């Protein structure tokens, strides 16, 4: 027993070491586009990290009161104020879209083009509805007189950082929607027939990343 576990562990290290000390490619069998997307996402991670670090610094240093998340982001449904209702739905939608995306990737490797197409379109639709709900939320806050430079409930930085970070994330989602639709169309048009459909997986990487970032934004902005 112990022998086998040890040997598998060893083989992970040795295979990594072998790949890194080999010629031609470091990540064996990984297409260029996929490697490039991973590196891009690493870079993008730092963008969001910097934004979130900025947020934390603001949050910890401002002296004026910070609005209470459960009150600001509450929706009144049938006369009952439900905290974080909209956000819960948005988060649910985005996570669902990650699920459809994963299915699309799976279909891609089975070369089922129409399945890929519809799943990607579904993902894009979920993403678009996410952006739509974000618009709704922005409108609601703006009607409550929250502005990037002003916030009736206290620290003006709340408005600034909220609109900036969710806006930047929303931009990512919107770009992702466009990206998904383009790739989906090109898939059914047969542009990728000569490949292994790794483009679907690459698109998926981006989409999952955007989704993951949302989880952090959700945690920091709505639960803190």
């Amino acid at each position, binding site marked *: 027993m112990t022998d086998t576990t040890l040997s598998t562990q060893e083989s992970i290290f040795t295979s990594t070491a072998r790949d890194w000390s080999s010629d*031609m490619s470091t990540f064996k069998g990984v297409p*260029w586009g996929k490697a490039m997307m991973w*590196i891009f996402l690493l*870079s993008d991670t730092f963008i969001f990290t*910097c934004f979130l670090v900025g947020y934390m610094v*603001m949050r910890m240093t401002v002296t004026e009161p910070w609005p209470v998340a459960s009150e600001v982001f509450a929706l009144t449904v049938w006369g009952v104020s439900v905290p974080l209702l909209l956000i819960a739905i948005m988060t649910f939608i985005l996570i669902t879209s990650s699920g459809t995306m994963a299915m699309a990737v799976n279909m891609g490797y089975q070369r089922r083009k129409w399945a890929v197409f519809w799943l990607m379109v579904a993902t894009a639709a979920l993403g678009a509805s996410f952006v739509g709900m974000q618009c709704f939320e922005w409108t609601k806050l703006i009607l409550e007189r929250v502005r*990037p430079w002003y916030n009736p409930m206290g620290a003006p930085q709340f*408005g*600034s950082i909220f609109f*900036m970070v969710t806006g930047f994330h929303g931009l990512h989602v919107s770009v992702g929607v466009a990206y998904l639709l383009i790739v989906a169309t090109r898939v059914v048009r047969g542009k990728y027939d000569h490949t292994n459909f790794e483009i679907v997986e690459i698109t998926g990487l981006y989409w999952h990343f955007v989704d993951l970032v949302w989880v952090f934004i959700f945690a920091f902005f709505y639960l803190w």
Partner: protein
Amino acid sequence: MATVEVPYQETVPLHHPKTWIGKYIFSQDHKIIAVQYGITAMAVGLVALILSEFMRLQIAFPGWEFMNFFTADHYYQAITMHGMIMVIYLLTAFLLGAFGNFCVPLMCGARDMVFPFVNMLSYWVYLLSVIILMISYFVPGGPTGAGWTLYPPQTITAGTPGFDWGIATMLISLAVFIVAFTMGGLNYITTILQARTRGLTLMRMPLTVWGIFIATFLGLIAFPALFVSAVMMLLDNFLGTSFFMPAVVSLGQKLDYSGGQPLLFQHLFWFFGHPEVYIVALPAFGVISDLISVHARKNIFGYRMMVWAIVAIGALSLIVWAHHMYVAGMHPSFGFFFATTTLIIAVPTALKVYNWILTLWRANIRITVPMLFALAFVLTFIVGGITGLFLGNVIIDIPLSDTYFVVAHFHMVMGVSPILAIFGGIYHWYPKLTGRMLNDTIGRIHFYFTFIGTYAIYFPMHYLGFIGVPRRYYETGISEFYPIAAHNLNKFITIAALIVGISQVLFIYNLVHSYFKGKKAPANPWGANSLEWCTPETPPRHGNWEDRLPTVHRWAYDFGVPGEEKDHIPQTVPRRKAN
């Protein structure tokens, strides 16, 4: 693995452009893109050079009638533009954009970058960023005069020239540059990791590629911080948010800001700014290592140590940023941590210097023009490095920060040194790029003017810092700390700067003249080993190699191997069977 791996580039046909525009303007050939990057960077660098000469004239001859047009506003705009252009648009763009593009595919034995179209886009977006930067001279109020560090609140308050439009063009230009850099950088890294040729393991790569590799990696991690701070500052400026702006009264007017953190900007800026130093220095290290080894006809001493030093410096450079902020008012305990990490970085850096010098020992040194630049680099880098030990040690930084000591230090370490590496690299690779040799005599004259001139500028300047001459002073006037003799030293420095500036004409003349009239270059004029010298044609055609990519059998530093006929063995020569 059962299947034999084949370099992917060997299996896909290369698309050759038909038109002249496709070949030379919107070219996807990495060599053409390298030249485009290089020419643009040099052109914009020339602007920065001229700005610096005006600054020097103002510092040395305040009140001289000829300089009357040069007001304090102009001076501060000049220091800002000079700094930003030199650091970002010249050094980063040249070392990564030009050398990166030229060297990476050739030295990796690749046909081109992995995504040539993105690579081409990278150049055009870079050009766009340069144009936006230059537009700042034509917007109302002129370019920003906030210093290249762009510290708020100063950048966007009325006491600074270019506080509204100038800063906007600057920040937008930076953001666009970051987009360009990201597109290029993704290509370099993916090419190095995934598109090497047969037999080329990471530990057989020339150090130039290693330097570019780690530098690009740092760039992709560090530039986001600059991007974010640029976005936030733009919002502060145009939407009135208060990220970096506390409640301030600017020139009698209460501004509508409250609760922002000026120090947050500084942290973000230097989280980019310090790795930026190494983004410039690491490729220069790599180039110099190759130059010294080739022209000394001896293997680089301690190759593995050199690689690990590059990696270690790169990693450490991410946790030293606040040594630029010792007097910024951050929590004082940070001083202990950042002073320690900063001085630790001195160890791998010093090892690199030792190894360059040890490479000279019992070598067979050819004093060629590239070698001259390489040797000069080592000396200026030693000076820049050890003055860095002064400034990195928190308590010594207290009296020296914001003085000419700092100016001299960073010009020595990331102005003169990388520029010397760039010159060395150009003299070294020009024959491969154009098929013609640069004129040797002009090269030597250019070298001596540049090296001795810049040393004469920056070495004495350290001592101005010791007596307390503050940097960024339009005019010092007569002050107790500033004796007449120091004014004379300033005049001397200015004259040296003018001579250095003018002598660059020689270089440009040499580049242009040799392109048309230079001696025809042999395929491997320096007797070097790395792959770029093994191309079937000089200059290499689009696609670089024959149908089959070259196969690498050894590292790039087999010089003077005992028992061999020639004193160098190219990487493509198979190893002999064990005797």
